[in-house]
């Protein structure tokens, strides 16, 4: 068995074990063990990757393997990873593991909950290792559809509406993506009388100029909807607000990153000419999204909505940096995806813990929580600082890289958008500090709050794992940056060669 396929096999086995298990305790134990093994394994993958990288030389993708699947269509199960995918895989494993921990006390249909959650993560792992467009598309849809059940069954508030809206928008986007993928396929170079779905082959010989212009919007929008690009972001706040905690974490932490990753891997790398020519349209939308998300967060009083809009803003920054198409911006952008994934997962985990105790997510009804639940309160302060870009936290390293990259572009549009993006950080600081002040500081507004439980061990475990990663990246971003940067550089060179 090759090293990457095991990433799919571990969750699959976990799901099988869950199906045959009985009792709530065994469900959560099995899930935690399975995802724990997955996390350890993905870290082992990183070490293997680093040693192989040192020897591999110019090869961009490592551990490549191709298994023939649908021969008449030349569809293969083709897998391989570079530094970016490895980073994403570790992120996914960590967030799924912590997601299992925060769902420790799911009461309603616990078996189905963990099965859906882990099927979702299987889709995500498969997505990040795929090098074949068909396989990638399959895993993409596999990751989206459990969301419907997860939000619809275990969600709160207008869950049916939110679940339906999210599913339809994402599947609608994937329908556009399908058109784009088929376009890529039928304009790909012929090998032995067949077109190819292989991204590596298509990247070597991009399609004709006019075809790129036609199909680029399909692929870009298809993925960008998942990345909550303004104005296609509306599924995201509703979905977040209604989803159960672990699902919000996975959703904002990982699923939305699939959008960014897809934009980068498929839209930009396979259709670079179109990205250069009509990328500006989407750049304006991304710039709008940065400000829209930030100001949207400012207006909200529901904790989950605040973070949902904040995610829209941060993801728009990712898309903006991706569209700049240079080494520093891209590295920063990937770093931002990782950093934001961790930060937002921790945010949603903490919001879930607070909500479980206060039974409200309305900031205006809270106050003085730091005194009652000091651990959760302190964590919230820390992650807030990380989100607004405090040095020493991962957010700072990521955003700095993006802005350094962005300021190298002297075009008027890029310059204006960059300045707008920088200014959005101020707005971020406002909405985060406002929440921290209102929710955690000041007098206790509600007497009933004084009876709240302290954080339990599984909640602490989840929070500490995530915070450790955030601070780890913040203090020493060099290793991760190097991992990403080494993978980005050859891709940029490939694009520039193609554009010339």
């Amino acid at each position: 068995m090759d090293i990457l396929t095991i990433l799919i096999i571990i969750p699959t086995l976990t799901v099988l074990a869950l199906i045959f298990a009985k009792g709530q305790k065994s469900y959560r134990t099995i899930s935690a063990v399975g995802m724990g093994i997955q996390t350890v394994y993905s870290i082992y993958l990183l070490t293997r990757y680093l040693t192989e990288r040192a020897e591999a030389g110019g090869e961009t993708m490592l551990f490549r393997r191709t298994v023939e699947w649908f021969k008449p269509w030349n569809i293969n199960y083709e897998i391989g990873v570079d530094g970016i995918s490895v980073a994403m895989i570790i992120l996914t494993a960590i967030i799924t593991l912590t997601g299992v921990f925060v769902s420790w006390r799911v009461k309603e249909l616990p078996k189905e909950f963990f099965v859906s959650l882990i099927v979702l993560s299987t889709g995500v792992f498969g997505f990040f290792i795929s090098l074949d467009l068909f396989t990638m598309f399959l895993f993409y849809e596999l990751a989206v559809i459990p969301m419907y059940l997860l939000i619809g069954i275990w969600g709160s508030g207008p869950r049916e509406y939110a679940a339906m809206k999210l599913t339809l928008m994402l599947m609608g986007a994937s329908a556009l993506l399908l058109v784009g993928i088929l376009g890529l396929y039928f304009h790909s170079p012929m090998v032995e009388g067949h077109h190819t779905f292989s991204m590596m082959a298509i990247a070597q010989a991009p399609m004709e100029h006019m075809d790129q212009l036609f199909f680029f919007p399909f692929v870009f929008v298809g993925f960008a909807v998942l990345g909550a690009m303004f104005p296609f972001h509306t599924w995201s706040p509703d979905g977040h607000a209604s989803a159960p905690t672990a699902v919000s974490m996975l959703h904002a932490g990982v699923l939305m990153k699939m959008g960014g990753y897809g934009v980068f891997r498929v839209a930009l790398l396979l259709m670079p000419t179109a990205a250069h020519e009509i990328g500006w349209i989407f750049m304006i939308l991304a710039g709008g999204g940065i400000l829209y998300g930030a100001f949207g967060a400012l207006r909200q009083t529901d904790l989950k909505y605040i973070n949902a809009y904040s995610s829209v803003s941060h993801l728009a920054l990712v898309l903006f940096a991706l569209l700049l198409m240079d080494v520093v911006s891209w590295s920063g952008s990937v770093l931002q995806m990782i950093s934001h994934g961790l930060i937002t997962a921790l945010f949603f985990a903490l919001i879930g813990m607070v909500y479980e105790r206060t039974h409200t997510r309305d900031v205006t009804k809270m106050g003085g929580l730091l005194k009652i639940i000091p651990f959760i309160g302190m964590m919230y302060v820390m992650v807030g600082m990380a989100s607004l870009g405090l040095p020493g936290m991962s957010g700072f390293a990521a955003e700095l890289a993006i802005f350094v990259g962005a300021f190298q572009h002297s075009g008027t549009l890029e310059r204006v958008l960059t300045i707008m993006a920088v200014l959005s950080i101020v707005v971020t600081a406002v909405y985060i500090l406002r929440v921290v002040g209102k929710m955690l500081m000041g007098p206790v507004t509600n007497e009933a709050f004084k009876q709240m439980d302290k954080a339990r061990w599984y909640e602490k475990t989840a929070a500490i794992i995530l915070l450790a990663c955030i601070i780890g990246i913040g203090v020493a971003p060099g290793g991760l940056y190097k991992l990403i940067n080494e993978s980005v550089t050859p891709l940029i060179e490939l694009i520039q060669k193609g554009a010339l």
Partner: protein
Amino acid sequence: MNWIDIVTIMRDEWSIIGILILLLAGEILVDKKQLSMLIPIAIGLFVLHTAMSFIPGDKATLFGGMYRTNEMMHFMKAILNVAVLIILFQSYDWVKTTLLPNGMANAFYMLLFAVLSGMYFLISAGDFIMFFIGFELSTLPIAAMAAFQLKEMRSTEAGIKLVLLAGLASGIMLYGISLMYAVTGTLYFDGFLSAYYHEPLLVFGFILFLSGLAFKISLVPFHFWAPDVYEGAPIAITSLLSVVSKAASVFILMILLLTVFKDLSDAWKMVLYILAVLTMTIGNLFALRQTNMKRFLAFSSIAQAGFILLGILAGGAVGAATVIYFVLIYVFTNLGAFGVIQAIKDESGKEDMTDYTGLYRTNPKLSLVLVLALFSLAGIPPVAGFFGKFFLFSAAAGKGYYILLIIAVINVTISLYYYLLPIRAMLLRTSDTPIPTTKSGNMMRIGLLICVAGIMILGLYSPVYSFVLGLTQSWL
């Protein structure tokens, strides 16, 4: 040509006719009180028949070209056999409790097998006479079967509606055939169009002929009979109509368009394009508003037929392969859905979507089968429907039908909404008065299990597609 040849080449037909004769003899000879013993005999014989149809057939023609067959047609018949077999399993309880007391059980099987033999002749037809006989034989008995539940007004209404409209469709089709005969002077498919395809009268006749087939596949705007008949008829008959009958008609439509009417492709491609857009869109829009599960699946199957047209439009061996592959998957998928509806109806008599609220809590297994089937219909991976639809769309995109493809994917998204509605009712909601836990009979379980196996395996196991493609490549 000797008798041995006629027997071996037409073994499917002989075997089903043999079963029919045996059942007829049983009806006459067996004592009235012991008629129930014929049910397992009918099913058992048909199991053997189905198993036999998987022995590959050869390319051959008989009776001076009136009858022809090849590996692909043989495989199509095998697909129909499997579909009918699943229906036999799923309808077992219903036949036993509802039909047997009225003494109609045997009639049900005989009519069903007669329909199937009609479909064989339809697919294997080598001229228009044979085609028309097959067409009638595969339609009229269904009208009788639709009216089987004599005490229910809706069932009778369905039968009458079907027989009237089918008569109309046959008439139009026959008129079209006669016009084409007037131009070409032959009824044989071989060399039918050689020199005349530019004649306007021929095109006119062809359009009339096509409407007859479109009626049977229930393409919009020839679909008006379908929802009422589907809703009124017993579930077994609805599955027969919307799965088996539709599959057979799609097969013959594809065979005719890609071979006999090949030279007329400019005309039929345009017609099919419009029909595809209308069928997908209107089928979908009506399905959105349905609350009766049978009616809901009826409209959904109309929309699915629209997607199938994409493959026929793409044409060639690849297009044909995607059509057969899609139909194969569609058979298992739709019968899975109908099977669950039948199981629920047998037990509780309910078939409204609101009755399904909270079904998962009381009947998790049945609900999961329905969820799988609906996901497959909606084209969600990793179940088979995803692969079927993806390949259909690929075939269309390969021929440059990108606008049609965009319309199709928008329709897929719309269809996802209504496929999620029963899932929402079953899984997301809870009910104070859910359908109580039902215990299906063993036959029903086998039927559903075959469907689930098909849904899970046909997509992921890629040799199936390669096999189908091999068949169509040797055909075209």
